[in-house]
């Protein structure tokens, strides 16, 4: 090889790298590369055939979430826990939680659902979103094959909840709709023992599997991450419309619903957009659903944006209440008075909270202790 040739090859290699990167940039930030396992790798212990899969010539179409992954043998879904093994798609999440903790229910946050109780919280690795500010990215952006998991079949989870004196099992931390089969079976098992089920989710799921899940889910907190499809695509690698549909379906199916909106500076702190969001929620009959404006803290890849100023959260709350939302809270701001529940009629504080603790509950059978107005929730 002459030096001239060396230069030529070096230049060609550099050119290839630059072109590949440029193509990657042009294709947008919609979805990052997904690790693909060896075609014939067995799915692993506890794996269960996945629901909502449609066999097609040469691949299987996953119909659980709006991504609709077409999985050829050996492929792994965007959620990282659905694997096509020799033509059958398996959920490798089943029975493999990597995080199991006991939390106050207020931490989810669920403020109008069995206050002051504890939630037995479980998570399995994997998520169908790619949020740049994910707090639990080490599980959400991993596959169950990459995490250290516990062996917990549905019955063990329920036993754990009962032993920990938890009123609920929370499917949380990562994305429960991606460990769908496990959630479904565990929730059904929990109901047999009178333990209730709560979902902390992004709500990025198709309608049919969602309606099926609603049969065993009692409450949900859905992250409405933005009210702008472009922001959803850039920040979360998802779309807005399916999430809005999830909110409507949960309401229709009678699941107690609370909504969290994370206010991220420069991305989701536009007060006009927040007003549009609140108007839509009211128009959709969701004004009784508690809305939590949550303060952004720099995390994961989004570490260079500052925290949300408290006054921005206060403005958002004011807009939401003017729009007709009846219960609006501010989260992640310790000591803020917007942690309390205010009676929408008399304006008095009916549930006084500090952090995750209910200091005083002045509700009587779900009604304001002062004026008797009903306060929506499962008390």
């Amino acid at each position, binding site marked *: 090889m002459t030096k001239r040739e060396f*230069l030529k090859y*070096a230049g060609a290699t550099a050119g290839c790298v*630059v072109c590949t990167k440029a193509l990657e940039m042009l294709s947008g930030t919609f979805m990052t590369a997904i690790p693909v396992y060896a075609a014939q790798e067995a799915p692993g212990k506890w794996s269960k055939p996945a629901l909502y899969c449609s066999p097609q010539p040469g691949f299987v179409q996953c119909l659980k979430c709006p991504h609709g992954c077409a999985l050829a043998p050996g492929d792994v879904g965007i959620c990282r826990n659905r694997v096509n093994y020799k033509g059958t798609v398996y959920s490798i999440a089943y029975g493999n939680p990597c995080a199991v903790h006991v939390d106050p229910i207020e931490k989810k946050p669920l403020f109008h659902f069995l206050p002051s109780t504890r939630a037995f919280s479980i998570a399995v690795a994997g998520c169908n979103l790619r949020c740049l500010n994910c707090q639990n990215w*080490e599980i959400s952006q991993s596959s169950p094959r990459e995490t250290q998991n516990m062996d917990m079949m549905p019955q063990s989870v329920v036993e754990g909840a009962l032993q920990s004196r938890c009123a609920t099992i929370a499917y949380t931390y990562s994305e429960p709709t991606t460990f769908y089969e496990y959630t479904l079976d565990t929730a059904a098992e929990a109901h047999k023992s009178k333990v209730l089920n709560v979902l902390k989710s992004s709500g990025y799921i198709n309608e049919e599997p969602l309606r099926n899940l609603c049969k065993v889910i009692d409450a949900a907190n859905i992250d409405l991450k933005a009210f702008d499809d472009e922001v959803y695509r850039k920040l979360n690698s998802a779309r807005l419309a399916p999430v809005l549909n999830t909110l409507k379906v949960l309401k229709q199916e009678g699941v107690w619903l609370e909504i969290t909106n994370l206010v991220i500076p420069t991305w989701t702190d536009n007060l006009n957009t927040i007003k549009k969001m609140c108007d839509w929620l009211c128009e959709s009959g969701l004004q009784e659903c508690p809305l939590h404006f949550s303060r952004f803290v720099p995390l994961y890849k989004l570490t260079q944006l500052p*925290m949300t100023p408290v*006054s*921005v959260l206060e403005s958002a709350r004011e807009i939401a209440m003017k729009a007709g939302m009846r219960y609006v809270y501010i989260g992640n701001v*310790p000591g803020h008075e917007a942690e309390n529940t205010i009676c929408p009629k008399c304006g008095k504080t009916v549930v006084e909270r500090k952090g*995750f*603790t209910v200091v005083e509950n002045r509700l009587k059978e779900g009604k304001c202790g002062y004026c008797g107005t009903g306060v929506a929730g499962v008390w």
Partner: protein
Amino acid sequence: METGSWKIRVALLLLGANATAVQVLFLREFISASYGNELVIGIVLACWMVLTGLGAFLGGRIRKLSPATLLVFLAVVPSLLVILLRALRNVVVVAGSMAGLGDVSVAALLLLSPFCIVSGYTFIRCAAALGPGQAGKAGAFAYTWESVGSIAGGLVFNVLLVRIFDIFQILALLATTTLLLVVPVFREPLSARKARTLLLVAVIVICAGVEFSALDRWTTAMTYPGQELVYSKGTPYGTLTVTRQQEQLNFYEDHALMFSTGDVVANEENVHYALLQHPSPTRVLLIGGGIAGITREVLKYPVEHVDYLEQNPWILEVGQRFTAAFTDSRMTPIHADARMYLRTTDVRYDAVLVNLPDPSTVQVNRYYTLEFFQEAKQHLRNGGVVAVALLPFAEYRGDESRLMQSTVYATLRRVFSNVLIVPGSRYYFLASDTVLDIHVTRLVERRNIANLYVNSYYIDDTMLAARSAALTAGLPADPPPNTDDHPVCTALQLSYWSRYFGTDPIPWITAGVILSAALLFWQFRPVGSAILASGFAASSSEIVLLTAFQALYGSLYEMTGMLITTFMAGLALGAHLSGKNLNRASFFRLAFLEIAVAVICILLPLLFTGLRDLASTGGTGIVLVATLLIAALTGAEFPLAVALKSTTGTDQVSSPYGLDLLGSAAGALLTGIYVIPAVGIAQASYISAAVSAAGASICLLGVRRSNPTGALPS
């Protein structure tokens, strides 16, 4: 060579000065744009050297452009590139998010190309302008004067320019100086009339410095969408910026967010978990973070004196101007490197609180090491406590996170009887020789301290205790300790950070560099191999010396600058002396120099061990002498290699120069980001020695085949 050589001397001086200043400025811009760490620094430096090397190769082949035209280009283009980098930052990468290594690499290759390729090309054209007759002497001459220019540029930049001017003012100053010198010296590429006009423009440019200041403010503001820029100042430690969003102030260093005002959770956690452990803390040492609002929390205790250490004095100035951190007379802000401070003070404390970012750099890692914990313990009173924090809390810990926590835990356990992990918004590690209590809210209530977050409303002691116990029990057993010499945590932190972007790139980078080196060794033997190895050994030993120096004597900015300047001076001195004795040039001599470098590299770990007990003044002198020696030996190799190169014409200079830069790139990249964090300083020195010895061996083997005497072909 004498005819016109003074013009070339000026050109080389300008080239060296310009390149050094622009390199430092660009490095800062890239760190700012990517919110990067040592991986980013390594990649940008490597791109810089590879591109300059490419320019040098081209310089041996394309001979059309004159040095004067090139220097004018080099003077003008950096400002445009900085504007481009700032403008495109939030277009290419999502605003507020970190850039991946792929993005940084592509951006560095694209944006540095115009400057670096032309810079490498210009060096070769300057050497060629000295005449083709005595390539070795021409090479030595060019190398020496460029190095002298670099020293001058580095000194003026570090000592003067960066303290007074912003980036565009500095670049304007450099451009004007170049134009003022190039036009009269070369009398080209412009006519006399045009030259006069240009001079006038240059004077106006200087006088309009204020406008460049506005340009800096405007382009800086572009990188903070939605925030009002209230303060921005270049300091030798990095650019400090303050922005406002409604009532909230945000503080950045090199565009990396340090903290925002009103962060109740962080402020309380950083203080109370530790101070609650002491029955009555009266004297407290804060290392970093004092202006973030934590001083108010410290003053909730009956403290009599709080010493707050900050290495960058401008942070203290910013704190004074924008916060109420120093209003209480019990607060004493101190500008000092905390490690150095602890070695020189006799004061003892009840608590040492470390509020620093995660140890993603060897410099920050110094506050998570065995040596630091030992020094801190020596300054603790009975019942004293040390607190450090690590990584954001998550419901699940991956392998890197668990290993890092396990390393810090095990390191603390070697020094203190009790270590407690408190899972807050970060993982807080408390260490003391007295019993530590995880029931923090009970302690808060007992002391009657009014907190907004660290209280029983937010924290359940029972759950906290259970989580703390589970976290501790889940740590891998007996990891190696994190030390100054072997910064394990930095390696783990870089792996942890790399996982943000999917895969760990370090093994790939390493494999790529080793493969390329093997190919180049094979292709360019024997002289090429020697010069490649020499470049590698020089840059890697420079990084080893810098790291060891920081570990030994703290990371005082001026001393680090002096070390780099000494290194450049050594290169110039070696090249100059070697260039004078080229008639005795031989392959054996080249191999001898390589072996000498290898021997010094082998001795470096012994030297560092010996220096531990030596006072800093004497130790600094010895480190500087070692630096000068290695650099001089490396510098001496360059003219020898040029003289021994069998080809003719300018390729005699271009090929060794390019290979030297390629070797340097590999050395800087691998040693900084991989070798030292993975295996430690001593092993990194031995690897440098091995590479240098390999270069010498290939050189000797190759010459034995072609020329048994090893003498210079006549």
